[in-house]
């Protein structure tokens, strides 16, 4: 019954990551897409509860010249994005 959270806004110009930190539950996934992938690049300090999986959409990283620091963020292609929406119970978009 986990949730996939989609973030498409820059972490530098918005506070969406801070809002998100209060909204996740253990087992949830966070996927960065569009301008959200800049978070993979070194987001401003924010803390998440344990047990959250972090992903960035590969094609949006590539177009922006962003290489995620692999320690924190895994990358995922469009097929992986689809699979995540199927394996989680619901998707919440943050914009």
């Amino acid at each position: 019954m986990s949730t996939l959270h989609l973030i498409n806004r820059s972490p530098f110009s918005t506070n969406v990551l801070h809002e998100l930190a209060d909204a996740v539950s253990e087992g949830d996934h966070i996927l960065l897409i569009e301008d959200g992938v800049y978070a993979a690049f070194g987001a401003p300090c924010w803390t998440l509860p344990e047990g959250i999986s972090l992903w960035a959409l590969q094609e949006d990283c590539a177009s922006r010249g962003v290489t995620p620091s692999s320690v924190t963020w895994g990358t995922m292609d469009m097929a992986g994005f689809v699979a995540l929406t199927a394996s989680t119970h619901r998707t919440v978009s943050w914009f």
Partner: protein
Amino acid sequence: MSSKSILVIVRHPPHGSSWVREGLEAALVGAALGQPPTILFSGDGVLALLANQQRGALGQKGSAAMLEGLSLYDVEPLWYDHLSLEARGLDVSQLMPGCQQACIADMIARHDVVMSF
């Protein structure tokens, strides 16, 4: 199928964009179809709950009148995320009647479908 529960999250402030009105309209239609969604105000969405709002210049409609009408359609209470309210230096006494506090993580986990506005 039709027993799915829907959560409408309003995260944008009123007046500056049409998101609040659009989220509320979706919730009202759901209610009219006999499936009243839960509605939660989070982030800047809690600003839609402020008392003493008015129409904007040029007669632009806000969302306050729509909010007052929601209870007629069994969309109640008006849930707000309490951390969002605190972060804006507000307390419940500054909000319109009918608001109740919630925790957004719990709300999301308890519904099948989430619509964001």
